[in-house]
């Protein structure tokens, strides 16, 4: 199939970017979107032009590295990752516009690659549990209701891709942060740092310059892992509860 690709090209973080149009004449409907760009890049290199920079890693939908804002949707029109999006989703001869994630907190590094280390810093601020050394506890000793375990697991499937930020009109990271807070808040192992975690992760999220959720739920509609906005409500409860009752007087949000 033939595809016309309108791609955002930008030489570096501070360079001015612009759209460039490329024709891909030999795309197979069975290729993934990334393989289609690989083919185009091969041609560009042969012609002595610079290849289009884009993020990818596992190419099997589990690492969260691939991005791309395709025809007005993060990861394209299907609710999946870009590496799992196939060219058969598009029409022969279609013009496809490809842009990087757009957020103040995700600056463009080059072409379609953005810096998502803000997510790492949020995670480092509180997205962990402390595990003490000593004898190995029996795994079945802690009772966890199946429903709760499932709920925590669903939250833990978030791959940190940032599609929620890309989709949100406020570039809010709340679906991501709420998933990370929820996966621990629901489980017994997460109780020790529970309040501190909510305070610190929200404070870091604010400091990174993400917007504030206005409950439009664009994130839920685009998340490739089906993370639910009920997690955001849980985060709100966790954060409010923590701010009102934790022993910490001096921390917890308000970064501008």
């Amino acid at each position, binding site marked *: 199939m033939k595809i016309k690709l309108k791609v955002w090209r930008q030489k570096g973080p501070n360079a001015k*970017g612009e*759209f460039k149009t490329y024709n891909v004449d030999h795309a197979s409907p069975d290729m993934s979107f990334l393989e289609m760009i690989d083919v185009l890049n091969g041609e560009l290199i042969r012609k002595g032009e610079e290849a289009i920079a884009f993020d990818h890693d596992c190419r099997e939908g589990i690492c969260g590295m691939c991005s791309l*804002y395709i*025809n*007005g*949707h993060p990861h394209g029109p299907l609710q999946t990752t870009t590496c799992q999006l196939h060219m058969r989703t598009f029409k022969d001869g279609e013009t496809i*516009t490809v*842009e990087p994630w*757009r*957020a*103040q*907190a*995700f*600056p*463009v590094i080059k072409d379609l690659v953005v810096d998502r280390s803000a997510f790492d810093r949020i995670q480092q601020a509180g997205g962990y549990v402390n595990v003490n050394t000593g004898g190995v506890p029996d795994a079945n000793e802690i009772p966890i209701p199946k429903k709760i375990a499932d709920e925590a697991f669903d939250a833990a499937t978030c791959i940190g891709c940032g599609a929620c930020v890309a*989709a949100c*009109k*406020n*570039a*809010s990271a*709340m679906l991501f942060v709420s998933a990370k807070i929820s996966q621990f808040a629901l489980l017994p192992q997460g109780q020790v740092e529970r309040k501190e975690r909510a305070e610190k992760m*929200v*404070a870091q*999220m*604010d400091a990174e*310059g*993400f*917007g*504030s*959720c*206005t*409950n*439009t*739920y*664009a994130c839920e*509609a685009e998340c490739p892992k089906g993370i639910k*906005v*009920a997690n*955001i*409500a*849980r*985060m*709100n*409860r966790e*954060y*409010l509860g923590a*701010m*009102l009752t934790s022993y*910490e*007087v*001096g*921390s*917890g*949000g*308000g*970064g*501008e």
Partner: protein
Amino acid sequence: MRSIFDSHQNLLLNMKWLIDLFSSSLGRKVVMALTGLFIILFLTVHLIGNLQLLKDDGGEAFNVYAYFMTHNPLIKTISYVNYAFFVFHIVWAIMLTRKNRSARGAEGYAITNTSTIWSARNMGILGTVILVFLVIHMRQFWGEMHFGTVPFKTYGAQEVKDLYTICADAFKNWWYVALYSISMVAIAFHLWHGFASAFQTLGINHSKYNPVINFVGKVFSIVVPALFALIPIVMFTL
């Protein structure tokens, strides 16, 4: 030895968490939700009062009610809280909207596609329409009632201001009735999203309660503005 100054400093340090809370992204939204829900309660009471305008008694019920609302100390206190909440709702709305606009960054998208509902994306615009209406509305009725020269009427032993006639006169202007109705449409759209949204913001999202919250929200957002708008339309046509 600790001086009074020290303990004041401690108090300030001790308040930092509160300031952090209300300047955080989540805390700001809580301000929106709490003030919004309070205004919803206020709208309900306001509507019950207004419906008395339609009573065929030359305005007696409405005027006596208006007198009560402007003289009862408890109601007066609540009304000042209400004004304050309006101000908070509006100021926080401006802060949030500005921050959210800048969060996208310098370069926006060339193409956007969204499946989200229109109301949810345009709360700021809807709010601005409501605000313009509020200013005119307050000048017209609240301002007249408090600072204007409103004629008096006597019911039994009670002498009260005749706000009914002020309303009836205002509702003879077609442009005022039109403005009023348009603003009620804006409130309807604002609450179509806002009612349920406030619960999500406060962390109330539960499969047992969501259907009720959504249903009540949709009914409220249609019925209450519709009844509000009905009053001037009926009085205009009479």
